[in-house]
């Protein structure tokens, strides 16, 4: 079964860049809502944490806090709702706060989806196309971090058993910590020599490297790329001509309906829901395919 995450990583990366870019840069309430719904729905169906209340509660809290802060610190706007300590709370500031908070939460959801889809393999593939050397550095770091962490745990354990932390005072703990860290550096350098040997033994540095990955660009990927780019261009154009501009201050004001604004909203709406369409479409297709098994 091919889900949205199974499209060629470069295309998924382009998609996420367009969506997150537009959602963060264009403060249009309609676009914000579309993007939020698209991101949320995609997260719910694709991620294993999608139905965990805890995750959503966290984003809800982020939303509430950021939405509340704006009217408390910003006193622009013409419609005063109430006055707290001589400071006016305005309707415009409240509305702006709500949509700014929505923009943040939306971006969080999309990033969450992005990290679920972009495994390290895929990131490497994307970087590898640009520079095989950078991709190797990333890959080696990804390898080294868990190794370092595990060794650190082992050292701490061994040193605890040696009584390094015996005194339990802050000073002795700090001293122990410093000693452990410096030994970690020695260890890392010492073991780095073996890794370097293993690299040269296998021909590292003998000339231009090639780059291997399992990903291919298929016909589906090209179709997807075409759709994404078209919808993205339409949206960006309609933003560029100002049809989707909304003013929050001093008073809330929008440009009204026009050919540009409608096509911009429709294009962006479709764009936001592409992953959801793909996932649901695949599920339905898969359901019928399993009937044949």
């Amino acid at each position, binding site marked *: 079964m091919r889900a949205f995450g199974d499209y060629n990583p470069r295309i998924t990366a382009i998609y996420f860049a367009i969506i997150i870019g537009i959602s963060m840069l264009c403060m249009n309430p309609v676009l914000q809502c579309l993007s939020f719904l698209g991101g949320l729905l995609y997260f719910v169906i694709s991620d294993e944490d999608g139905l965990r209340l805890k995750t959503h509660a966290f984003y809800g809290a982020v939303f509430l806090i950021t939405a509340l802060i704006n009217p408390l610190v910003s006193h622009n706007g013409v419609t005063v709702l109430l006055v707290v300590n001589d400071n006016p709370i305005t309707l415009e500031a409240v509305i702006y706060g709500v949509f700014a908070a929505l923009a943040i939460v939306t971006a969080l959801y999309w990033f969450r989806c992005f990290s679920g889809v972009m495994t390290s393999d895929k990131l490497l593939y994307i970087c590898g196309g640009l520079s095989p050397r950078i991709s190797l550095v990333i890959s080696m770091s990804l390898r080294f971090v868990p190794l370092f962490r595990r060794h650190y745990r082992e050292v701490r*354990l061994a040193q605890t058993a040696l009584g390094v932390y015996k005194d339990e005072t802050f000073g002795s703990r700090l001293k122990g910590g410093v000693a452990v860290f410096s030994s970690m550096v020695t260890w890392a350098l010492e073991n780095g020599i*073996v890794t370097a040997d293993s690299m040269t033994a296998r021909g590292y540095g003998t000339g*231009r490297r090639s780059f291997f990955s399992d990903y291919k660009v298929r016909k589906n990927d090209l179709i997807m790329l075409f759709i994404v780019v078209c919808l993205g261009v339409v949206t960006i154009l309609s933003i560029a001509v100002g049809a989707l501009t909304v003013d929050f201050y001093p008073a809330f004001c929008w440009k009204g309906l026009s050919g540009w604004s409608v096509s911009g909203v429709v294009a962006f709406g479709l764009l936001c829901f592409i992953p959801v369409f793909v996932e649901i479409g695949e599920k339905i297709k898969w359901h019928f395919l399993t009937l044949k098994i």
Partner: protein
Amino acid sequence: MALFDVKNLSFKYPGGHEHALEDVSFCVNKGEFVVVCGDTGSGKTTLLRLLKKELSPMGEKRGNVLFEGQDVLELPEREAAGKIGYVMQAPEQQIVTDKVWHELAFGLENLGVPKDVIARRVAETASYFGIENWYDKDVNELSGGQKQLLNLAAVMVMNPSVIIFDEPTSRLDPIAASNFISTIKKLNENLGITVIISEHRLEELIPLCDRLMVLRNGKVVSLGEPREVIEGLCGEKDGIVEAMPGAVRLYREMGAEGRCPLTVKEGRGFVENFGNRVCSLPEKNKEKIEKKDEKYALEFKNVFFRYGKNLPDVLKDLDFFVRQGEVFCVLGGNGAGKSTMLLSAMSFLRPYSGEIRVFDKKLRDYRGQSLFDNLVGFLPQNVQTLFLKDTAKEELAGDITALPFDVAGYLSKHPYDLSGGEQQLVGLAKVLMQKPKILLADEPTKGLDAAKKREIGNIFRKLGEQGVTVVAVTHDAEFAAEFADRCGLLFKGKIVAEATPHKFFAENNYYTTSAAVMSKGYYDGAVTIADLAKLCRLNESGNVKDGVSG
């Protein structure tokens, strides 16, 4: 034509006083399986590295190493990297990238091989080595044996004509090691890959190899067909015989006459020549019972532990005790819970049920770090985790003469510059400086040569005599048989068998020593080569006496 032709090779490290190699000459033919053995510091690694262009050490070199008639140092870079494979000791540190598939492709990427060729070679190699199932995994998730297999596969993918191994199995457990060796044999036999391998543990390699080379102090002492070489060595009382298969050691004990047995099968034939009129050693029955009255130093009572709510039990009703002054060896396969057992004995892990007592006091009643205050010492599997200072002398600040062994020779060096065995001794010394009453040791003999193993074993025995309790988790049956007071077999988080070594190994069929296997059903309770030799001698003299009287 010879694949490698080494002519009068001498080598000296910069600043070194003695030659690391002196006038070494030999040939390796295509498709040969050559084992290089020698004590630590005999120049094995230096020799092997000089065969590989990229790893050749800097220093003063005389003589030549020819590969297919050409000096290795003059080989074109990419050809040299691809044709001569090299696998080192440390499974972990040789791996460069984070994914198994990427590691396989790494060498070919370096050589600039086109993507579609890499795809085919990687796929082919992965399926030959049975790597498909973990092809997409992170390398961190692999076991030690899988890591070393990956290192081998990552070299094989470059299509080498020879692979050089520098102690590839010394950090693996016995089962992974023997799988690895059989893979090497398969490569040699089915694909015609030339193999040059150095190793401490020769038990399984000797019967496989075509030629055996013995190095001592940088010189080739002997080179030839393994049986001849070994028969020659046994005559000379050479220390390297300690590392040889059990059958060879028995042969030497018995005076090194006639044809030398190499395998367990041949060893059994050798034993049966002596007859079995006397079946068991009389004094073995009342061995080491004097510690019966000592109190318990460490006690596990129905201990259960798991790493997560929904994960399986790792310790499952674990129940055993160790008396004060005992040397207790716990044997068992990977994942049996050996390390978990040690960690929970130090309260690094908390069992969810059951009780652990140290000197009859519950573990949780030891406040703060008082457990490690002259009470429990821990020798971890990786001794490098013990070292924090720049010299061994600083590590061992204090009175080193109180130690049951001598470390004076190592003091001036950086701990990392010591050999594996020396590191182990310095690490053990550092732990013992804390004067623990219980020493917990995790795989204390891993990667050590026979001489260092014996040294560690003797230290454990001495500690036992001084009233220090030693609990060692080990894979090494030969070690446990010789130096333990009692052995336990841990299986699925539970001690399923527990007895004195001579009973324990005599009753085991698989988890046992080569002496026990060679004499199974023929003699009773001969678990070490020394026991077996004693029995053979008793029977031999019996035969002679009969001959005289008859």
